[in-house]
């Protein structure tokens, strides 16, 4: 498994990538700050957003059962999937049952996580990604690098070239409006004729069984309104207790993600609506590691994430490495705490170190996930995980812990060090330490201990 440090090292050498990501995140940071500053009660909204998610997570079994009942009562069919393979199997079977050999898809991180498109293709079903950025990614055979703007690493010139090559459109300019127009023409016929739509969802309301989808382009509305059959894939953590709670999330999410007062379209549907939209509705509830995250009392808060992407837009590490370095569907600070918990430390143990713990992510998180706290917690897990091996650094740290935990041992160690340091100190600095300690002085000097410690001076006063 490639570590974050290895991937970041490669990414940092790509100056075009750094330029694209730096440009995009700089613009969105300024816009987000303006959008948030407009609301005098932003902090109160954040606190409510956090508390509602805590309520759901602490009683997730209750809310899942309530949600299932409400969806079923309104004409939907609920399916459960323990892992990615099971989720894909369920979706493939549902599509096959309709006889369709292609589907239109709106952007869904959960189906990215389960690699649904590959499973569909293996079964002879063609998935059409309809979100502009997802279309770019699909045409380029690339993977997403940002949760909101999966193609953030590509600039307009690169997208123009891709469209000319893959869609066979000539004389395209690199004006974003013209590129969007090309995508509209390309997908129009698909939307009008598709029999099956597949979507994700931003929220599921336990009380009513309502699903919410927040988007900009209208492709989400197309996928969830026009086909005869709709299949929505939802992680089990996406629930909120009641319809009323949208008064919080409708304010927190748009301003944190696209940095707008409101994104262009928010759709809410509840099961099957007679004479309006799909007359067959399936909901697939996916675990795929989420219950592992839930079991960790500190790490659990990561499941409150509403996928706004503010944390990556503000992260100084993400800004330089981009999203691919995280080797995960969920990049940036949230990915650094979510991925190791979903996939295990063996696969993603390097990610908790993809941060300098500056806390910018925590400051901007609309549901107040304490990302630095979870990062430190996970680093502790990584260290514990590695403790089984007889590592000299581990041994040294354990010895240090012993010395520092007793006043007597500490003072003895100080006296020994003062006596032992004289061969290395030159003109008030130590430039080279011997043996195993030489690593410390490879890039820095240290000051020797003074002749008299503060403790000794204090006693003599």
């Amino acid at each position: 498994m490639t570590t974050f440090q290895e991937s970041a090292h490669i990414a940092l050498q790509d100056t075009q990538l750094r330029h694209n990501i730096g440009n995009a995140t700089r613009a969105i940071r300024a816009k987000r700050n303006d959008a948030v500053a407009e609301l005098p009660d932003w902090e109160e909204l954040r606190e409510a957003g956090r508390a509602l998610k805590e309520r759901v997570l602490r009683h997730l079994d209750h809310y899942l059962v309530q949600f299932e009942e409400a969806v079923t009562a309104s004409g939907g069919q609920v399916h459960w999937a323990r892992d990615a393979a099971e989720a894909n199997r369920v979706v493939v079977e549902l599509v096959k049952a309709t006889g369709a050999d292609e589907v239109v898809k709106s952007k869904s991180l959960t189906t990215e996580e389960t690699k649904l498109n590959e499973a569909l293709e293996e079964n002879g079903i063609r998935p059409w990604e309809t979100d502009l950025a997802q279309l770019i990614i699909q045409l380029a055979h690339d993977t997403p690098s940002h949760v909101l703007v999966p193609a953030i690493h590509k600039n307009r010139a690169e997208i123009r070239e891709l469209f000319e090559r893959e869609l066979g459109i000539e004389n395209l300019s690199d004006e974003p409006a013209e590129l969007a127009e090309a995508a509209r023409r390309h997908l129009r016929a698909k939307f009008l004729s598709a029999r099956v739509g597949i979507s994700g969802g931003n929220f599921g309301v336990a009380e009513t069984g309502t699903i919410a989808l927040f988007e900009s382009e209208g492709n989400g509305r197309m996928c969830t309104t026009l086909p005869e059959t709709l299949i929505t894939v939802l992680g089990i953590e996406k629930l909120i207790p009641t319809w009323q709670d949208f008064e919080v999330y409708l304010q927190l999410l748009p301003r944190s993600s696209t940095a707008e007062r409101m994104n262009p379209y928010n759709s809410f549907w509840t099961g099957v609506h007679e004479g309006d939209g799909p007359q067959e509705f399936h909901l697939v509830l996916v675990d795929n590691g989420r219950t592992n995250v839930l079991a960790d009392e500190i790490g659990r808060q990561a499941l409150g994430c509403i996928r706004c992407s503010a944390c990556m837009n503000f992260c100084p590490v993400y800004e330089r490495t981009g999203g691919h370095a995280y080797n995960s569907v969920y990049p940036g600070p949230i990915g650094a705490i979510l991925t190791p918990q979903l996939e295990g430390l063996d696969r993603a143990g390097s990610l908790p170190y993809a941060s300098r713990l500056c806390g910018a992510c925590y400051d901007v998180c609309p549901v107040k996930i304490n990302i630095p706290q979870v990062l430190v917690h996970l680093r502790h897990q990584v260290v514990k995980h590695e403790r089984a091996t007889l590592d000299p650094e581990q041994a040294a740290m354990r010895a240090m812990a012993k010395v520092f935990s007793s006043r007597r041992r500490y003072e003895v160690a100080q006296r020994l060090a003062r006596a032992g340091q004289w061969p290395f100190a030159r003109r008030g600095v130590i430039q080279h330490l011997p043996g195993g300690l030489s690593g410390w002085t490879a890039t820095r000097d240290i000051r020797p201990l003074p002749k008299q410690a503060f403790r000794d001076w204090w006693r003599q006063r």
Partner: protein
Amino acid sequence: MSDAREEILGRVRTALRNVPDDESPDDVRVERAYRRDSGEPHEAVVALFVERVADYRAEVERVPASELRERVTRACERHSARRLVVPEGVPAHTRPEGVELIEDRNLTHAELDAIDGALTGCAAAIAETGTIVLDAGPDQGRRALTLVPDLHICIVPADRVVGSVPEAVARVAGGQRPVTLISGPSATSDIELRRVEGVHGPRRLVVLVVE
């Protein structure tokens, strides 16, 4: 399938062992200390709505009731719309002249695609965010009507404009009819994170606020 359900619920319960058995969801405190309404007089709320809709580069006008038909007609002319789909609940006195008005008798997607625009009312509107709320009421019709045609003309009675998001959420019966919030024309920020109007939904949105 039910095996998966039982196993997932079992995993959730195991993961939540540390939550006391006698704790109920309502025991987890949720402080709703945020603003419930904007606290502004109604005239200011309507003025803010108009300003915010305009920010999305939608066309927005305040219209006296007596002039509504004329203004709808003019909007159609401006956008060369000759055929409009109109839900049955849109009042007769608002329907434009010189334009073919089409009733939604189970129009197919292809038929809708050949229509120039849709004329609807709305359930509510939100000033702070410049948002129109549709709930598939009789003057709004089913969701496809305001999605497939390239022009949406929306009549917003001034008394349906509220200041804040919480006020609008309280006005709509979520969980029964489908609800759609519309804030400006279809747009994307997918290219270099810059907003561009006009992708799959209607590229032109005309909002007429009626006094």
